[in-house]
């Protein structure tokens, strides 16, 4: 299972932190998809490692929060979302959900290697935390 921020994601974070002229959009949404391809540091879109069959995205339930060096992002995927597909990867994007697709260059980071069949029997609330540590 991979859990990482990509190079582009690190650029987004660095640029936003120092307000560089790159004008990156903030991290605004989360996606789930059923690709078995592991994320890599050079990814910029969900389908960089291969076509994604099924994908769903959602804006955060509320503004992300920070405690010390950990930032928490929460998004809900409702009962009617992603039904019959298997959640294999979870990702963050620096764009609103309406602008996120499997091909959009919005991927910041995420985790892969999951296997949860999404049904209409439940809604799924995902909490993704990023912790920054300086060594």
């Amino acid at each position: 299972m991979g859990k990482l921020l990509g190079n582009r994601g690190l650029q987004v974070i660095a640029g936003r932190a120092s307000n560089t002229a790159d004008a990156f959009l903030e991290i605004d949404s989360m996606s789930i998809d059923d690709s078995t391809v592991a994320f890599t540091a050079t990814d910029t879109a969900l389908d960089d490692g291969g076509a994604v069959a099924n994908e769903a995205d959602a804006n955060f339930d509320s503004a992300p929060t920070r405690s010390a060096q950990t930032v928490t992002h929460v998004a809900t995927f409702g009962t009617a979302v992603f039904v019959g597909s298997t959640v294999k990867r979870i990702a963050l994007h620096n764009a609103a959900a309406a602008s996120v697709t499997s091909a959009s260059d919005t991927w910041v980071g995420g985790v892969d290697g999951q296997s949860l069949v999404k049904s209409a029997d439940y809604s799924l609330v995902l909490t993704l935390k990023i912790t920054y540590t300086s060594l």
Partner: protein
Amino acid sequence: MSEQEVRLVTKVEVVGWATPRPGLSLDELVANFHRDGVTVYEVDRDNNRVRVIDTEES
């Protein structure tokens, strides 16, 4: 001039909670997960939800 390298390490973790749809009990949802071979990490009856994704425990 000496140089000092500072490393920024990032850790990404995900937790997923499933809440049953109206008309389905928490026990029925848990039974469904067990039937489907889904790992149930925690049953939270106070909040009517089941923890089914946890990258720190998996």
